[in-house]
């Protein structure tokens, strides 16, 4: 791949969904079929672009650790150093690819959802997807934040308009919580920019400026990291700021749950790994002991809450909140290994949770309820769905052979050197998720068919998983398998970048510990 076309390809991956949304804005003038085609292209182009970039990444020339760099001045560049600068490094590349895959799957699910006012729905979903691609492609910290909001705003509207029960309350709660989180992290980012004396919001410049001055004063690091940690923490549903998440996900329409729980929520963790830890290692060290216990609360307390759920979608939602705790644990170790594990885990978790939301919706279509007590014996009517669902559950538990295994394994290894007690408690989470996951599979698919379910199936005869639903599920599952068997596809670029950035973090943490 030559050097000129690849930055363009990256821009295209971000622009295509947004351009699709722009076309759909005039959807009233276009036939429905054409609108669907435009939306499909809008979801497909980022996927193809992301896969191509992934393939070409290792050979691509890199500047300051970033490949495919390109910058556009928007008017604020000279004085405030805000410019649209895109590029990928080893930390953002895996998440970028994951976002493209999940976005494609969510887009397919939306196209086949038969939602009311489908054009508007697709439009908002495209804006969201464009924002997500932008988040991970941005080198400029300001745009990293801006694209996040791009993705966030449509979720509020979509939950409110197309959501399930309690949608208005859920939308309002999400909006307020997430705005608070976003504002706190924005304050932290501004603080970082102003105090670093960097010439621009560009992450490369920020790193260089901070390295040049030998790091910010410990006082600043302590406070700025707190802003970023709690700001991002709210966005990632860190315990005890998580209450918006299960409610929001269970109220949201399926595609939105997939994109939000799968991809958008990784924003905060990604911000910690990519920005906060490398730039504020002393602050991170101050807060890491807090973070460990909060993250453990995510894993254990929310794990038990997930076990207690009788509603399938709520259970998946709580499970997703529980699992982000592992990501935080990896981050809290302040080691190269832990950060790498966190990134790998984010990718795996994004894929598997999206798959679960997708399949959960398919279950709903066949039994008419999310209440697991009224389910049973679905395997007879939908064996393929049962197979997919079981595989998804196993992937989410982190069975070897799936991507999640490598993520969890790395995190546990990095935790072991920090504290054996924490590792043991974190391992408890695997058992918890196995318990609720396998019990859900048993309840939904096996056992006797309930009376209720049989009645519903007669009234609404549905076949097994259709191809339109199989395709997105296959895409997600294939990615999970691929990474499970060939983790090097992610770890090679990841190691390269982490190796450049994280030794300094480890060294600073060691100094601070003494």
């Amino acid at each position: 791949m030559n050097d000129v076309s690849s930055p363009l390809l990256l821009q295209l991956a971000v622009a295509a969904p947004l351009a699709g949304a722009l076309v759909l804005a005039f959807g009233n003038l276009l036939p429905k079929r054409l609108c669907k085609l435009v939306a499909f292209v809008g979801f497909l182009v980022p996927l193809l672009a992301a896969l191509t970039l992934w393939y070409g990444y290792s050979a691509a020339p890199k500047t300051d650790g970033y490949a495919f760099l390109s910058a556009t001045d928007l008017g604020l560049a000279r004085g405030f150093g805000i410019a649209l600068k895109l590029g990928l490094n080893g930390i953002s590349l895996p998440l970028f690819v994951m976002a493209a895959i999940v976005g494609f799957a969510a887009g397919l699910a939306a196209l086949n959802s038969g939602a009311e006012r489908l054009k508007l729905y697709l439009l908002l979903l495209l804006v969201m997807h464009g924002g997500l691609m932008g988040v991970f492609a941005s080198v400029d910290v300001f745009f990293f934040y801006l694209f996040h909001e791009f993705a966030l705003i449509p979720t509020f509207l979509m939950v409110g308009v197309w959501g399930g029960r309690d949608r208005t309350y859920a939308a309002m709660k999400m909006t307020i919580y997430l705005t608070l989180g976003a504002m706190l992290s924005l304050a932290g980012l501004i603080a970082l920019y102003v105090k670093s004396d960097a010439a621009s919001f560009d992450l490369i410049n920020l790193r260089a400026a901070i390295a040049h001055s030998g790091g910010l004063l410990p006082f600043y690091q302590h406070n700025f990291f707190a802003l970023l940690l709690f700001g991002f923490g709210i966005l990632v549903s860190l315990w005890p700021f998580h209450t918006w998440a299960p409610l929001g996900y269970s109220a949201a329409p399926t595609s939105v749950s997939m994109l939000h729980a799968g991809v958008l929520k990784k924003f905060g963790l990604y911000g910690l790994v990519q920005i906060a830890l490398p730039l504020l290692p002393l602050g991170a060290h101050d807060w890491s002991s807090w973070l460990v216990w909060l993250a453990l609360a995510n894993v254990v307390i929310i794990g038990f809450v997930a076990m207690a759920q009788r509603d399938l979608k709520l259970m998946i939602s709580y499970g997703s909140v529980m699992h982000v705790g592992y990501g935080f644990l990896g981050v809290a170790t302040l080691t190269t290994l832990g950060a790498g594990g966190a990134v790998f885990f984010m990718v795996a978790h994004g894929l598997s949770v999206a798959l679960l939301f997708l399949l959960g919706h398919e279950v709903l279509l066949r039994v008419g309820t999310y209440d697991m007590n009224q389910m049973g014996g679905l395997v007879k009517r939908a064996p393929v769905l049962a197979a997919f669902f079981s595989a998804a559950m196993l992937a989410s538990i982190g069975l070897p052979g799936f991507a999640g295994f490598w993520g969890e394994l790395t995190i546990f290894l990095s935790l072991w050197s920090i504290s054996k007690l924490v590792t043991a408690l974190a391992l408890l989470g695997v058992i918890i998720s196995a318990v609720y996951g396998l019990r859900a599979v048993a309840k939904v698919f096996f056992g006797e068919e309930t009376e209720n379910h049989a009645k519903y199936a007669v009234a609404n005869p549905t076949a097994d998983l259709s191809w339109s639903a199989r395709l997105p599920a296959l895409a997600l599952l294939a990615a999970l398998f691929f990474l499970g068997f060939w983790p090097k596809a992610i770890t090679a670029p990841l190691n390269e970048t982490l190796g450049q950035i994280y030794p300094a973090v480890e060294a600073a943490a060691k100094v601070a510990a003494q």
Partner: protein
Amino acid sequence: MTPVQQTLHALASTNHWSALAPEIGLGVVALVLLLLELVLPKRAVAVAVPRVAILGLVAMLGWVARDWQSAWLGQEIFGGMIRQTIDSQIMRVFFLLASLLVVFVASVVLPKHKMPRVEFHHVLLVCTGALMLLAQSNHFVLLFVALETVTVSLYVLVAYFRESPLSLEAGLKYLVTGSLSSALLLFGIVLLYGIAGNPLLVGHTANSMNFAELGAFLRLHPEEPLALVGAALVLSGIAFKIGAVPFQIWVPDVYQGAPTPVTAFLAVSSKAAGFALMLILVRGPFQPLAQLTVPLLSIFAALSLLFGNLAALGQRNVKRLMGLSGVSHAGFLLVGVVASIATSDAVSWAPAAVYFYLFTYLVGAMAAFGVMAHVSIDDDADQDLRHYAGLARRSPLLGATLACGVGSLAGIPPLAGFIGKLLIFVAAFQAHQWTLLAIAIVAVVISIYYYFGWIRAAFYEEVPAAERNVAPLHLGVAASFTLIALALASVLLGLYQGPLGQWIAGR
């Protein structure tokens, strides 16, 4: 020549009338409107008057743009009465644009209530001219005369729906509180004039109403108690105009009772004029008094941010909502003003950030008022959130415009208002105003609740069964284009600031 003649000669030699051509032009157009009513048949008047007003405003906009690099930029002209700067040029454009949009809102509202056009547009144009003079004033006499022209015009406009008791009540309230603020201002001016003209003090001056001379005097006497009291009174008088707490008491009632276009005018132009004045004063003559102005304006800012947002939380009437949220916007803007004068680390580009914020507020607020004008039914003062239920279905265009405008006011990225707030935050940060910054961030989060409630009403709530027969809203072509332009501006100004951004960044 006698000394008097000499003075007059000196005055006349600095009277560069062409520098004020746009203001004079507006006055002429305003008179032409009155003539038109005499000459044209009644039906033609209703059509012609808004068009002539728009033509006049656009022509003056062109004139300001043509003379952008005016030959007298930075010099005192008219014997020290007027001083044109790039800042004042920007505010002239601002007031002309705002009045254009007020004419647009009025073109929807006035026909609904069968109100006469001529007087409205006449007063509006005169008022616009006065606002433009205000932004260039360099002397307390001109400042006061221009400000009174604005205020008296607004007394008329607020009570324009003379058959609506609420409009009359609003007019009366505005009259009482407006007079009070004028009195405060005048008292402050007199104190400053007196102390700076005191022949017993070093550096006293006969021309102590002139900002430059007053500033020179205050630099020698930065701790003179009477001067401090005078400055505080002047700033309080201006705080009335911008609706900053504790001088916000008139805001909700007057905003609600005034006809919607006048509410828009009050919210945008009157507030902006207050900030233009405040920046001229605190960075000019009052600069030596930073030990007073910084804490005073910080308190105004903090109170406005908190009170405005908390009071807006419970509002169901959207005009009152706009009023109280306007109070909190005044708070954000005041944070920018404080950053521009903070004692040791004043931020040189903070005034530019304030202007940018004003422009984003202009776009966002006018989008909201444009939608309000279309949605309001019989009673202009009764514009409730419930009228917005199902708006997105009744008219997708109005729904989308409302979402862009209100979203921008709330400061949601990537809309224009976000960049405005971001610049203010960065300025506050660089000026080390930590407390104000923290309060501003809390204020943003609170404000999401009520702004979002409005969007929720428009998008999520269905049309109530009792009002099912409400027909889809139809918009005129011109109205559609204006609304689309406003919505697009809210989005584009957030994504691409272009020359405006370069100008701020370069300061």
